[in-house]
């Protein structure tokens, strides 16, 4: 057995565990420091108190909800008081944290104001710009780009002066709230290759490109007649109908055919032909179920300010 007190430097008061290895190798059995022991007892007491205050123990098919901590928040016009839990705490924070309260002052002001008032008031406009920037960044930027310039062929540019569906605040708000279905039928089967050539020549002539005048004249007849029927949406002059989301073909701004991206006239014509042949099918999702009306209002102001809204 042990040779108690063999360690002369520590004195005989310190116990050893009683184990001995290799003949004389021993292990001290020091008592725990008093402060440590009391801290340990303290955590035990803390845990027992906690069980009573917060949701803690499962009991049968339910659990103890805690007695002291209650959370009160507003839901659907009613005041709800419930036991402490993270979901109720979130509701409370969304409604009553200092940041939420500060933001709400502005949101209520913006909700009550018309677009004219918001655009005229630097304070509200500044708020709209900074808050909408975040909403835009998460919801709109993936398609339209963080600068609003979109991607030719896929997603319209919001930063220029051309508006497929209208550039007034009302039009922009409708586009965001309800979404849009950009559609142009494919003419690949209805028109021959030659006719496609002619239509492309006419379309390019509308925006001042130097094309064969005879081909353009033939194209104009297809465009304005029943063969193509293009004028139903694009109008006889090619300026487009906002109600159909049909592009203005005379403004030198291209949203689907990448005309500016092609250096040669043949290339530009090929781009226009491709769009006429294959048609267009683009979707802007509706945001009314995902964003609340004030967020949509702020976004409308933001988009309007991005690109020379009307």
């Amino acid at each position, binding site marked *: 057995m042990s040779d108690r007190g063999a360690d002369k430097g520590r004195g005989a008061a310190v116990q050893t565990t009683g184990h001995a290895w290799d003949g004389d190798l021993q292990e001290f059995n020091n008592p725990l420091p008093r402060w440590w022991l009391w801290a340990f007892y303290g955590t035990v007491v803390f845990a027992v108190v906690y069980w009573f205050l917060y*949701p803690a*123990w*499962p009991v049968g*098919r*339910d*659990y103890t909800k805690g007695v002291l901590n209650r959370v009160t*928040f507003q*839901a*659907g016009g*009613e005041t*709800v008081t*419930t036991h402490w*839990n*993270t*979901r*109720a*705490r*979130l*509701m409370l*924070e*969304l409604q009553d*944290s200092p*940041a*939420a309260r500060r933001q709400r002052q502005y949101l209520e002001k913006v909700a009550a104001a018309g677009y004219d008032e918001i655009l005229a008031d630097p304070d509200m406009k500044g708020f709209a710009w900074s808050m909408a920037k*975040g909403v835009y960044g*998460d*919801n709109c*930027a*993936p*398609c339209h*780009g*963080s600068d609003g310039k979109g*991607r030719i062929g*896929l*997603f319209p540019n919001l930063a220029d002066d051309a508006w497929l569906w209208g550039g007034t605040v009302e039009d922009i708000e409708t586009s965001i709230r309800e979404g849009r279905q950009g559609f142009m039928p494919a003419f690949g089967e209805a028109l021959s290759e030659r006719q496609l050539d002619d239509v492309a020549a006419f379309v390019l002539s509308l925006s001042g490109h130097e094309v064969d005048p005879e081909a353009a004249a033939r194209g104009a007849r297809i465009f304005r007649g029943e063969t193509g029927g293009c004028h139903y949406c694009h109008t006889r002059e090619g300026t487009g109908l906002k109600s159909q989301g049909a592009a203005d073909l005379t403004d030198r701004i291209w949203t689907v055919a990448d005309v500016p991206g092609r250096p040669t006239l043949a290339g530009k014509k090929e781009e226009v032909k491709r769009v006429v042949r294959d048609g267009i*099918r*683009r*979707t*802007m*999702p509706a945001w009314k*179920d*995902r964003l609340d009306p004030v967020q949509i209002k702020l976004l409308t102001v933001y988009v309007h300010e991005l690109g020379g809204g009307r």
Partner: protein
Amino acid sequence: MFRHEQIEINAGLLIALTLVVISVGGLVEIVPLFKIPSTVEAVPEVRPYTPLELRGRDIYQREGCFYCHSQMVRPLRDEWLRYGHYSLAAESRYDHPFLWGSKRTGPDLARVGGKYSNAWHVQHLIDPRSVVPESIMPAYPWLMERELDYGDIARRMAALRKAGVPYSLTEAEYRRNVERWGKAVADRLDIRRAEEALLAQAEAGNYDGDRRRLTEMDAIVAYLQALGTMVDFKKYGEAYFVQFR
């Protein structure tokens, strides 16, 4: 008298007692979640994935999307503002395995369904930086090139059925699904007609924008567009969900 030394010098007893002690924490925290009905929200509109969405989910796993994208909106103010409503336990009830993830190199995807158009997803998966210049996501161009292999879809669904997912194999099960989710949904959850349902959904949805081919892109976009869309939160109100915590 009890002596701790008895435990220390008896390896078998030490192992047994160690297991008892460490399982207490696990059992107290985990078992009640399975046994207490009041922790899972009653949102009956949550349905299993359709065959096409299920194949998309498999591809999502194969490509390791969950390494960088979580599918779990936590009840925190900033997440609520950015992603939308926090995730419900019930929304994951048919997920085997869960794809909650644990790291967000990319954004959370729990509510991505319906947020962007199909065309955006296709373009973004083929070349992420063409639509989001600041993105660091890798490109997945082969999704558009590879034909979707759906030959074993019925067996995949049958395996999930064994894990408790209510895909129907008998007429009685099918009728129960019709009662729960209506005929249109129940038709898509029937193992006996799985291939038919998969092809019909791909044809109607045309997720990859190419009607001629059924690609892996069709499946993964169908899956992404379904994420987080099943619960109509307006129907319940926040006071309802708070009861389940």
